[in-house]
C-alpha cells in the first residue's frame, strides 16, 4: 500500500528534505505551506501521516494540530511534529497535544524515516514495483504470466522487455505464480535479436523454476529446434492451448 504523507512547512527546503527522505519508499508525499493549506490538503487527501512544522505564517503548527484534532475524520491521522525548539516547555506542549512523535531541527532524513518506521512499515519502492508490476508487453491471465511480443520488435522494445523480465518474474514469485507463456504469434520475422530474447526468457524461467510454454508459428518451432536450450519446446497455436498444458 502506498503511504500517503503530507509535509507541512513554510520552508520549501524542509519540504524537499522530507520528500527526499521518503523518495526511496513506496510513499506519495503531498506538500502544504502553512496550517490553513495543510488542513485543506488533509481534508481532500486523507493522508496516512502528517509531518508538521510548528513555526509557520498564516496558521502555525500548534493551531493546525488543534483544529485537526477537532475534526472526526482527521483526528486519528498520526502527526510527527518538526520543531526548531527543543525547550522543555515546548516539548511538553507538543506531547500533550497528542502528536505521535516529534523531531527537533536540525534533523536528517534518516531520523524522520526511523520515527515513521515506529508507526508504519515502509516498503522500498522496488518492492512495490514488483507487487504492482505493469508493462505493456507483460500481462497476467488466469494466473499465467503472458509475454506478448509485438509484430516487429525493435532493439528498444527488446531492451525494454529484457529490462522488465526480472521484475515480472519477481512479481510472479510474490503472487505465487509459476506459469509463463511467451507469445510470439504476432511476430512477422524471427531474427537473431528475438532468438537472443527467447534464450534469455528460457534461462530466466529455468533459474526461477517457472514453467514456460511457447505460442507461435511453425517457423518458430523450426528455429527453436536448432538450439539445444529450446529444442525440447513444443509450439502452441494459442495462449489458451498453451495454458491447457500446464
Amino acid at each position: 500500500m502506498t503511504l500517503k504523507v503530507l509535509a507541512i512547512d513554510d520552508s520549501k527546503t524542509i519540504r524537499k528534505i522530507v520528500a527526499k527522505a521518503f523518495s526511496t519508499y513506496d510513499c506519495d508525499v503531498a506538500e502544504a505551506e502553512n496550517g490553513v493549506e495543510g488542513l485543506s490538503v488533509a481534508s481532500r487527501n486523507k493522508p496516512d501521516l502528517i509531518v508538521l512544522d510548528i513555526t509557520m505564517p498564516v496558521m502555525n503548527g500548534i493551531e493546525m494540530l488543534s483544529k485537526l484534532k477537532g475534526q472526526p475524520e482527521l483526528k486519528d491521522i498520526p502527526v510527527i511534529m518538526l520543531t526548531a525548539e527543543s525547550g522543555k516547555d515546548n516539548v511538553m506542549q507538543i506531547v500533550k497535544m497528542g502528536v505521535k512523535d516529534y523531531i527537533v531541527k536540525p534533523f536528517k532524513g534518516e531520523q524522520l524515516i526511523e520515527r515513521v518506521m515506529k508507526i508504519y512499515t515502509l516498503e522500498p519502492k522496488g518492492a512495490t514495483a514488483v507487487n504492482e508490476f505493469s508493462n505493456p508487453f507483460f500481462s497476467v491471465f488466469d494466473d499465467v504470466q503472458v509475454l506478448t511480443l509485438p509484430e516487429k520488435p525493435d532493439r528498444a522494445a527488446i531492451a525494454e522487455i529484457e529490462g522488465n523480465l526480472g521484475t515480472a518474474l519477481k512479481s510472479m514469485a510474490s503472487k505465487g505464480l509459476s506459469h509463463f507463456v511467451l507469445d510470439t504469434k504476432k511476430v512477422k520475422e524471427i531474427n537473431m535479436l528475438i532468438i537472443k530474447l527467447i534464450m534469455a526468457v528460457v534461462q530466466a524461467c529455468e533459474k526461477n523454476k517457472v514453467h514456460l510454454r511457447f505460442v507461435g508459428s511453425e517457423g518458430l518451432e523450426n528455429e527453436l529446434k536448432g538450439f539445444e536450450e529450446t529444442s525440447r519446446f513444443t509450439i502452441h497455436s494459442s495462449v489458451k492451448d498453451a495454458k491447457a498444458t500446464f
Partner: protein
Amino acid sequence: MSDISKLDLIGFAINSTRDVFQTMLSMKLNVIESRLPMKSPNKIVGCVSFAGDVMGNICIHVPSAFARVMAAAMLGMEPDEIEGEDEVSDVIGEVSNMIGGDLKSRLCDAGLPCQLSIPSITRGNDFVIESKGWMRHERFAFQQQGHLAMVEVFIKTVN
C-alpha cells in the same frame, strides 16, 4: 528570572550553529573570535526575533557565493543546480530559524520564556546592521571553504 548577563550566549550560538552546519550541511565549522562587523560586497542575512520575558534577534551573515554553496549542500545538489535566489533565501532563513530555535529553547529553559518569529531575509551590497539599546550583543565569525560568515545575537530583558 535569570540574569542575562550571566548567560553564555556566545557558547549557545556557536554550539547551535555548529550543530546545524554539521547535521544539515555536513560542514564542520572553523570558529574565529571576532568583534568586527562582517563586511562583504554581496551578502545575505537571515534573522529571527524572539519576544517575551526577553527580546532579541539572532542573525547569520553569509556572503552570497557561500549562501549558494550552503543551499546546494542542504538540498543535496551542486551549486550550479540551484534554480534561483528564492531557494538560497529559503535555506538561509531555515538555518537562522534552527539556530534561533535552539537559542530560544535555551532561554526558555533558563527561565526566560519567549516566542520565536518566522525568519526574515535581507540581501544587499556592503551594508552593516546596527542595532542599539540591547543589554547584550555578541558575535562570532566562522570560516568555511574560504568564505567568512558571521552569527550575531542581540538580547535584552523586558520589564
